[in-house]
């Protein structure tokens, strides 16, 4: 991660050099902490048990999905409840490429992402025609179409689904290398490989979102979120920006989908296109953590994981409570847990706001404008 080391600096012609900065004092320290955290996480498979690695894999993949949905809904204003479409398409693309095309699963993962992005092109074309809230249901309908179509694909098991053949994953790219270097058993090595890919993907996603938000496009996105017409008037191409983000998140979501189902090794249309697993949970993570921040989904996924571990035995009571919690947070703390924390402390781990610093002391003039 490049946190804080390359903050945007624009000199404005002023006697005492105004600077536009996005860096805060905290963010420099956080960059170091982040690098250490990633390093520790990367070393995890060598030290911890397989069960923990699988838990971490779950957390990282959900985090990546959450960051993507947050970018869509929290920043681009595209409230999709059909992201399961891209999880499903990525997953099915992986199975198709491996089972029917004989491709190495690791190579198939990025291609699966590209195919998911390809599906997003017509999806965007249809769903962008729907006004605001109806966009949400529109994406859902298209995800349903995806589920029903894949249920018709008899070569991949139709409605009941299929499994990845053991031979296909046995000599995955890099697997034997891991077995030799770390002396892992094949199954542990496969878990570790998937885990490292998930870690890389989550890190990449957060870095990408962070970089995007600090760029000129990120500023345009904020302008569109505040007032689309005004943003358009100053030359921000809102539609193009939103389409680009939609395609990007489709790609990343598709890659995560492929990765998750490589790990699961068994697919069915109902599971791969599940609204609850790939959208409802993700929405809860983002809402509980704090929508419209990078920190929110990170905090949200940890809370979600703890809740899941503690209460998921309660079945539908657990889901009911999760839904109620999301409602309460949306009503009383719409910026989520992270919003509560940053209001108290002023912390910003991933500063994307532009702060004006330096310059001569400001003379404040309290009179109102004549308007």
């Amino acid at each position: 991660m490049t946190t804080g080391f390359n903050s945007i600096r624009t000199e404005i012609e002023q006697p005492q050099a105004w600077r536009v900065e996005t860096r805060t004092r905290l963010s420099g320290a956080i960059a170091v902490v982040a690098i250490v955290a990633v390093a520790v996480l990367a070393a995890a498979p060598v030290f911890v048990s397989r069960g923990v690695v699988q838990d971490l894999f779950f957390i990282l993949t959900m985090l990546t999905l959450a960051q993507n949905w947050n970018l869509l809904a929290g920043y681009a204003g595209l409230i999709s409840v059909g992201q399961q479409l891209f999880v499903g398409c990525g997953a099915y693309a992986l199975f198709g490429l491996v089972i029917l095309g004989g491709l190495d699963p690791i190579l198939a993962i990025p291609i699966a992402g590209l195919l998911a992005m390809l599906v997003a092109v017509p999806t965007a074309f249809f769903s962008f025609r729907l006004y605001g809230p109806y966009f949400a249901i529109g994406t859902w309908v298209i995800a349903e179409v995806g589920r029903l179509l894949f249920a018709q694909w008899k070569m991949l098991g139709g409605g009941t689904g299929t499994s990845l053949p053991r031979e296909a994953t046995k000599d995955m790219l890099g697997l034997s290398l891991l077995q030799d270097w770390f002396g892992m058993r094949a199954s542990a090595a496969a878990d570790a490989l998937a885990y490292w890919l998930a870690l890389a993907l989550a890190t990449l996603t957060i870095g990408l979102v962070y970089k995007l938000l600090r760029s000129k496009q990120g500023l345009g996105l904020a302008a569109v979120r505040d007032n689309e017409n005004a943003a358009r008037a100053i030359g921000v191409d809102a539609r193009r920006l939103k389409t680009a983000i939609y395609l990007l998140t489709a790609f990343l979501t598709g890659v995560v989908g492929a990765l998750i189902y490589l790990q699961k090794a068994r697919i069915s249309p109902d599971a791969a296109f599940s609204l609850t697993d790939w959208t409802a949970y993700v929405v809860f993570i983002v809402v509980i953590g704090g929508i419209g921040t990078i920190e929110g989904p990170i905090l949200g996924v940890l809370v979600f994981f703890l809740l899941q571990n503690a209460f998921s035995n309660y079945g539908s009571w657990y889901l009911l409570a999760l839904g109620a919690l999301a409602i309460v947070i949306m009503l009383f703390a719409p910026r989520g847990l992270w919003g509560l924390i940053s209001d108290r402390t002023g912390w910003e781990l991933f500063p994307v706001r532009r702060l004006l610093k330096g310059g001569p002391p400001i003379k404040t003039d309290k009179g109102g404008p004549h308007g």
Partner: protein
Amino acid sequence: MSFIDTLLQGILLGGLYALFAAGLSLVFGIMRLVNLAHGDLIVLAAFLILLIVSTLGLDPFLAAVVAAPLMFGLGWLLQYYLLNRTLGKDILPPLLVTFGLSIVIQNGLLESFTADSRRISANAMETASVDFGGISAGVMPLVTFVSSVLVIVALNQLIYRTSLGRAFRATSDDVVTATLMGIRPNSIFAIATGTAMMIVTVAALYLGMRANFDPTAGPARLIYAFEAVIIGGLGSLWGTLAGGIILGVAQTVGAAINPEWQILAGHIAFLLVLLFRPRGLFPRAMD
């Protein structure tokens, strides 16, 4: 099965979809609120009717008459105390709160009624049919269709002929100016959602008598309702009926070709309309 027969089945099925859609359309028209829990509320109403039938031993139609004011009250409370707080310029809060509500209702029903499929028994009416010169139509689908037409006529009367309807339209046009007329928007919205829940009760009655339902049946009902509204064009209740009919016909034709294609054919009809007539087939002239 002849083509005319399939067509008739589809048109009659469209009546059910129009019933699903009318409440969604009403609420959206008045407060620009899309209720993602709409389908789950239909299923909730179906369970309520089932409960009344089984505990009081009432006829399903009578049970619906008992359930309707209860559902009105539920809708009123829901809107007044929960959803009104989410209304505003930002479309995110109402969507996420109703999405959460959908999960809450589904799982609440699962806990109360288990995942078993249920059906509201309508006895003789379930199998009765009428013959129209060689084409036979089930009494149940016919009654459903007639009910949907009656509901839409009544709703149009309410909206265009009563002072409450004027207040609905005025508030929909301009909330701030409506308050200057002495209208309390929060009450108007609560009454509108209450009214929508009474339509939902009618929809639930036929949903429950025609086929099996279970606690997870809501989202699919929401999607059909949404498709009917978009196909018909926002803002027109007769358009919504037409949208329901097109969806119904597409589904029955699809099912006639291959039973697995029923739902898919409906979705494809919806996407085709979106492709060629993005504002729907019968959009309101204004707005």
